């Protein structure tokens, strides 16, 4: 196979700027009496406080007192201490850390969208309702579904919403099965959501292909099963080729099939969950449709359903009336609302813009190349970091550092840290749980072949260094603002808020 010249197109190869001191907290920068704000003069007279006399706060909250200048410097420096997609590649498996287009930032700042009060009557939000309807339609077309709620503010919230609909569906039929099947490779939010929905988890095992074991599935499917939650491609990056048979088994007992859309980036425009037979699908707009992750949110996890489940969707939904005007509509058997308002609206608007920009061909190309990049990198790395399973991967793949550990003592976590030193973010480690020393790698389609090559070269260098000088890797990272942090100590004696006495550095 051809090796390309390594060129760090998206590699954070820049050298540091200045200083290696920790940044003080804002509380340490505070000086009594200092202020950043300046009041408006609205002409409104001051009202006596007697009315709330007994309630008055005895002492103002101990917030910091800083100048705008120092606040700006503080948060500018904090930003300089953070890795981001804009700085370099982020092959964090399952998270789909692709490039987030900048024009979507302009959408989120647009006054006509951002300055709208959520309780504005329908006639004052026709633009917003149109956008939401169009996004709902697009997501339904992409997933092969009939209707959708845009309320869930993240994937996990979508899961819970879907599970509540499964419950509503069964109850509407006078049934109440109590178990949900999930594979042993599933993401942690799946079982956690199952519990929150008042269900019990039944685990189905993966076989040695890395796919759901059909025989084990037969073992766990019965009348008590309300549904199954699957990710496809699954969290190993492998397509569950038996998906039809799986859903057949599940549907046969009257259960519903839920599609965790966290891996939708592998298949847009080529394969649709609805066509596989799923009944309910969430999509993580902050993954597949590139709304930025914001350091851990906000996201959006719309849930789309087949036609006969629309009646259970959380309400209200935007719908066009006979007069052409858009209105809020409550599905007749709605499970109720799952968000105080209409979901993370500005995140939805970003995704709307992303879809408009791409069009059908652009979206198909996006997923195709996400798969190609992963497939290529999987193969490129196979010599130094073998994949956990033989199947060709979809948009991500899981390698195992087991051999590396056994021969050199270098573990998956060490490889991850050493990658940071080399200007890349680390892959996901130790997930899925069923792979020993797992490193889950998802390059995404926005990384160029040259960047993939540089990434591969970094992995190779880490493995080669491990063989020669394992301590150099197990002591990594070295080029970061702080070295490995004492996580055990942090959990043993938690310091969750700053206080004068206890600045956390003892």
């Amino acid at each position, binding site marked *: 196979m051809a090796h390309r010249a390594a060129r760090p197109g998206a590699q954070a190869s820049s050298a540091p700027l200045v200083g290696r001191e*920790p940044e003080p907290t804002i509380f340490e920068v505070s000086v009594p009496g200092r*202020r950043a704000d300046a009041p*408006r003069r*609205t002409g409104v007279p001051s*009202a006596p*406080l007697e009315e709330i006399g007994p309630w*008055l*706060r*005895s002492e*103002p*909250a101990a917030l910091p007192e800083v100048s705008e200048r120092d606040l700006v410097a503080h*948060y500018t420096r904090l930003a300089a201490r*953070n*890795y981001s997609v804009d700085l370099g590649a982020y092959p964090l498996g399952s998270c789909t850390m692709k490039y*987030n*287009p900048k024009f979507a930032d302009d*959408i989120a700042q647009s006054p*006509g969208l951002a300055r*709208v009060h*959520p*309780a504005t009557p329908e006639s004052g939000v026709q*633009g917003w309702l149109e956008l939401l309807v169009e996004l709902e339609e697009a997501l339904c077309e*992409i997933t092969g579904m009939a209707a959708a709620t845009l309320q869930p*503010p*993240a994937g996990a919230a979508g*899961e819970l919403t879907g599970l509540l609909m499964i419950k509503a569906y069964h109850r509407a039929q006078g049934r109440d099965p109590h178990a949900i099947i999930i594979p042993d490779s599933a993401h*942690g939010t799946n*079982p*956690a959501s199952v519990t*929150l929905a008042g269900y019990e988890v039944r685990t189905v095992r993966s076989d040695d292909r890395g796919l759901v074991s059909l025989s084990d599935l037969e073992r766990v499917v019965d009348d008590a099963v309300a549904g199954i939650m699957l990710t496809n491609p699954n969290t190993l990056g492998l397509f569950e080729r038996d998906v039809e048979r799986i859903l057949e088994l599940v549907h046969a007992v009257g259960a519903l099939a839920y599609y965790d859309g966290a891996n939708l980036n592998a298949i*847009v425009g080529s394969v649709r969950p609805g*066509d596989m037979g799923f009944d309910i699908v969430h999509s*993580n707009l902050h993954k597949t449709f590139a709304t930025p992750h*914001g350091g*851990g949110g*906000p996201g959006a996890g719309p849930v789309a359903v087949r036609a006969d489940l629309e009646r259970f969707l959380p309400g209200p939904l935007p719908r066009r009336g006979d007069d052409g005007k858009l209105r809020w509509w409550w599905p007749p058997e709605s499970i109720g*609302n*799952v968000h*105080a308002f*209409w*979901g*993370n609206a500005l995140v939805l608007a970003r995704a709307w813009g992303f879809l*408009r*920009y791409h069009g*059908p*061909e652009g979206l198909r190309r996006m997923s195709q*190349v996400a*798969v*190609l990049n992963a497939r290529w990198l999987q*193969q490129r790395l196979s010599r130094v970091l073998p994949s956990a399973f033989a199947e060709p991967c979809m948009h991500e793949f899981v390698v195992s550092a087991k051999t590396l550990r056994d021969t050199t003592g270098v573990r998956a976590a060490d490889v991850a840290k050493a990658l*940071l030193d080399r200007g890349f973010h*680390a892959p996901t480690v130790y997930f899925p749980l069923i792979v020993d020393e797992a490193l889950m790698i998802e390059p995404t389609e926005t990384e160029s*072949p040259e960047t993939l090559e540089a990434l591969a070269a970094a992995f190779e260098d880490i493995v080669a260094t491990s063989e020669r000088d394992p301590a150099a890797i197990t002591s990594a990272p070295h080029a970061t*603002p*702080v070295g*490995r*942090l004492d996580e055990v100590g942090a*959990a043993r004696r938690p310091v*969750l*808020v700053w206080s004068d006495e206890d600045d956390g550095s003892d």
Partner: protein
Amino acid sequence: MGSFVPHTDDELAAMLADVGLEGLDELYEPIPARLRLGRELSLPHARAEAEVLEEIERLGSANRAARRDLVVFAGGGAFDHDVPAAVRALALQSAFVTAYTPYQPEVSQGVLQALFEFQTLVARLLGMDLANASLYDGAAATVEAVNLAVAATKRHRVVVSRGVAPRYRSAVATLGRPRGLEVVEVGVDETLATRFADVTGSASALVVAYPNAFGRLEDLRAARDAATALGALLVVVADPLACALVEPPGAFGADVVVAEGQSLGIPLSFGGPYLGLFTTRSAYVRLVPGRLVGATVDGEGRRGYVTTLRTREQDIRRERATSNVCTNQTLLAIWAAINLSWRGRQGMVDLARANYDAAHYLALRLEQLGVRVLGRPFVREFVVDLGVDAAEVRERLLEEGWLAGVLVPEEPTWVVLTATEARTKEEIDAFAERLAKEVR
């Protein structure tokens, strides 16, 4: 065809050759053909970014935007506050916006330290021991508070005041009932305060809002007593801005205090992304939902921050996690932290006071015009009974550029009004005159 795929055709061909394929479609060959779409998605064609932004401007002009074509007198968990330019600029730095959850702390100290500061600021504002690193919104935080109470008490009965915002109550019902929670509501009296005397039996949580959704300041001492009598945790849904002016729920012995954080400088945004605040007492730290950031040190003794007490979380604890939350609202938490630091100790008091003044001036003007104001004592929201269908009045006033409060589902002639620091005397005078004309 737009896309952010950087590959040239030559590069695609070379990579395909490397993996032994001839075309991109072959990547999907392992998938049974009948599952493959075999046609293009039926979606609008691709557009240039300038065209997308023009469409957005068109859609935006079909909305009534605050301060452009609408003067807002509505709150209900979404307030028209000034957003300091520095706050917006700092929060929107790409290092924050385009980062993932801080799984690798060595290269995530920026986000982690910001969240540590956020936790501290929020705990101090609400008068509690600790705060988590954010939840989706005020409704989700209320639901999680109930979950914590259920886990702490192992009781399944939850008592919720009707003073809690309607959509928060319904979210508790939506997400609680299917798992077997018994959600009981307790009403308010003619002063719009919760009838704590009506609360009997035992429960996991007594949920009360402070000030409540009618703007009325509740008596949290009475609430505390009622909760104790129920054997329940006292859960308070607070207004974080009001808490700069009035004693925070923590001072009355609340067990869990949650809030909608939008008032901490987050734009109206048609309802989201907003920010769920979650605070509690140290005793319950291991039951806290979501992310917690803690201070620690590295090998050289340098201060640093990590996500901590991770065994509560879904990725480790799975079906026994305290919550399913994964992606939360980090960027908004950073935003709020910056805003709280910009406002500062006295600035938050002054801001709360400016809102107090504006709302009370509006109430005074309305009373002078003969409109009855309900729900005193209040901080910045109050009820007026229009005596006519409030939805129709709002519709009419919308056409004239006023957002005349929020509706109360149970009381079709009521509206809850507010006025923020951004409302001038002239706006308030004009609005009061106009609204008074509608009142019977």
